[in-house]
């Protein structure tokens, strides 16, 4: 091929970008097919997280006091900060898609770096929270002590949480199992996403997206926003159960 962006064929049809596959009538059709496929993948992801959300709903109804007590051990400051960080990273990714669409290489590189940094910040804050759980003996299966809910200690500057009866205190382990399963699967999605971000960053620096072949970036944008949506639901469900009690 002589030109990097345009392939010429004998007679059957006119010019089209070199990255347009021959079984597509037009770029519009190819784009539509690509995002359609991505959305189908995201639907399976909705079902995947949906199973955990259903388990959460059932157990929350069964062991509501344990869920309230478990939720109150999470840091509202860290949780809210992380929500802000993730929403901002979604915004920078949306800007990255816009830069790619309008063929701004510098803007695209900057957006990808910012998204990567914000993703790292999210995981950093998350690991601080996980470490806190480890210190407080709130890690189900590995390091768990229900007695912290039977005899709650007052945090400095705060009144102690109301104590739970022993059987209900033991059910906080269910809450923490769901907490780790849901935030852990969410974090795994973030880690995969950040691997892809590094790949796209290298490609963008090489100028691989300058010819307008940006389906990868657009589909990654969909993935990243989906991960954001999962967190938008996880945050109130895990952190904000009856904070007023």
């Amino acid at each position, binding site marked *: 091929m002589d030109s990097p962006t345009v392939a010429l064929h004998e007679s059957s049809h006119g010019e089209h970008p070199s990255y347009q596959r021959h079984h597509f009538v037009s*770029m519009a059709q190819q784009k539509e097919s690509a995002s359609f496929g991505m959305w*189908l993948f995201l639907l399976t992801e*909705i079902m995947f997280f949906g199973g955990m959300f*259903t388990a959460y709903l*059932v157990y929350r109804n069964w062991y509501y006091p344990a869920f309230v007590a478990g939720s109150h051990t999470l840091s509202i400051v860290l949780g*809210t900060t992380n929500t802000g960080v993730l929403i*901002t990273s979604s915004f920078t990714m949306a800007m990255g898609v816009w830069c790619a669409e*309008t063929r701004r290489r510098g803007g695209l590189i900057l957006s990808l770096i910012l998204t990567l940094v914000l993703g790292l910040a999210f995981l950093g804050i998350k690991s601080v929270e996980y470490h806190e759980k480890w210190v407080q003996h709130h890690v189900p299966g590995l390091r768990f002590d229900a007695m912290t809910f039977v005899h709650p200690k007052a945090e400095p500057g705060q009144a102690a949480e109301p104590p739970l009866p022993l059987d209900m205190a033991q059910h906080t382990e269910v809450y923490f199992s769901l907490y780790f399963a849901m935030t852990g699967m969410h974090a795994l999605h973030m880690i995969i996403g950040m691997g892809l971000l590094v790949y796209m960053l290298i490609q963008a620096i090489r100028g691989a997206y300058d010819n307008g072949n940006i389906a990868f970036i657009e589909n990654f*944008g969909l993935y990243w*926003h989906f991960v954001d949506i999962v967190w938008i639901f996880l945050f109130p469900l895990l952190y904000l159960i009856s904070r007023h009690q």
Partner: protein
Amino acid sequence: MSAHEEHSSEEQHIVSPKIYVLIATALLLCTALTVAASYLELGPWNAVVALAIAVFKASLVVLFFMHIKYSSKLMKLTVGAGLFTFLTLVGMSMSDYISRAWGSF
């Protein structure tokens, strides 16, 4: 040839950064709102308010960040079908769960 040109004329809509800034601001405000609302004593309405705000935020992300507002009917239908299937599966699981004990009282 002519079909080719027709298709390329329906270029995809590029969402402007202005809208992204607006949506991101709305999402951050809604986050502050949902935290504030969780400290109010609303009884069972706490969960309803928290979920309503989350659904609103998710809709903003899907419609604007994920471009569904500007997408074809096929894409809108795909998202709708996913939502419908999700709600059906959760709804049927929950209806089984709440009706398990019926008749045993």
